[in-house]
């Protein structure tokens, strides 16, 4: 039989009463296990953040290609081993600003310097200096019309989705995407299933220019849109009519 005082908690003894020790140990262990299970369960419910990332090791790089300005600045680089049909890269300035292409630059050679962010075949150059015109052989900028499509997906900003933010999609990223898009970063429509071989499409307005403000209420949400799709190099461009928008 324990002495009576052993049933009391006495702060300065630095010891728990004997009858409480087992209980506290079981509660602490159970709590620890419950928290581990909760952490594991919550982590399992998270969506895959995707494989986007910046090519930070390569640092600032120089790219040369033919520039087009509509609906957003695209640099069409010459074919190489990885891109036998040529490759279209999105452009945006560091700091969430657009690269503005004057009409007289349209179709001319351009040299840009910046950081490359990449997610699969989607690439964006974050330019760090003013682009400059250079002499390059004329490159094909043919536009292939693919018809009118009904596509379900999400409107993301091309910068974060390509790798600056992870995941860069979803409701949690809505405010950031809105901020980037209002700054002028090219929007990308991420389809839930591939469209003509690609799951992401640069967005534009049916009139030919950048997307109108009608886009903003649907940013970061899963939305179904109807619109024309065209292929520019290896980049698909989606020009949705926002009056057809449906939030499934």
């Amino acid at each position, binding site marked *: 039989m324990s002495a009576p005082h052993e049933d009391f908690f006495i702060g300065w003894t630095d010891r728990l009463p004997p009858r409480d020790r087992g209980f506290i140990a079981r509660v602490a262990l159970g709590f620890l296990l419950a928290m581990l299970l909760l952490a594991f369960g919550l982590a399992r419910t998270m969506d895959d953040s995707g494989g986007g990332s910046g090519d930070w090791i390569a640092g600032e790089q120089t790219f040369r290609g033919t520039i087009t300005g509509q609906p957003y600045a695209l640099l069409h680089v010459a074919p190489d081993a990885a891109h036998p049909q040529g490759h279209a890269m999105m452009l945006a300035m560091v700091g969430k600003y657009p690269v503005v292409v004057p009409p007289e630059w349209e179709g001319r050679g351009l040299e840009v310097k910046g950081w490359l962010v990449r997610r699969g075949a989607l690439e964006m150059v974050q330019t760090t200096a003013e682009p400059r015109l250079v002499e390059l052989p004329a490159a094909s900028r043919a536009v292939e019309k693919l018809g009118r499509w*009904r596509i379900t997906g999400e409107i993301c900003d091309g910068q974060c989705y390509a790798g600056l933010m992870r995941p860069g999609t979803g409701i949690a990223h809505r405010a950031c995407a809105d901020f980037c898009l209002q700054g002028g970063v090219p929007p990308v429509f991420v389809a839930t299933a591939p469209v003509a071989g690609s799951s992401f499409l640069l967005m534009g307005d049916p009139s030919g220019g950048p997307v109108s403000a009608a886009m903003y209420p649907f940013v970061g949400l899963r939305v179904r849109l109807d619109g024309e799709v065209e292929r520019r190099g290896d980049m698909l461009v989606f020009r949705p009519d926002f009056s057809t928008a449906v939030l499934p």
Partner: protein
Amino acid sequence: MAHAIILAAQVYGGVGGLVAAWFLLWRIERVDPMARGAYAFRPLLIPGLVLLWPLVLWRGLARPAEGREFRAAHARIWVGLSIVLPLLVLGSLALRQNGPIEAPPVRLSAP
């Protein structure tokens, strides 16, 4: 609209500051007798008081609870939170926007 929201937040925060000062300087010792003579912890309560000042005002003006009432209230809150918090976590997981659910694109018309 944005200006109205900011103005409302400023007014709410201003009133919260006044309520926090009143509560910490004059009322806290009547609400919780254990706070008598204890001052160092009081600044730590300011953010919570500013945010929850309507509740503070309601509880601060009510008759102070003592002893068994405190313990009974804590027990009720403990039981309530043990139900509400898991419901909040699981509910938010169940109601959140899920990742892409495949919806194949449909070609409506050829070019």
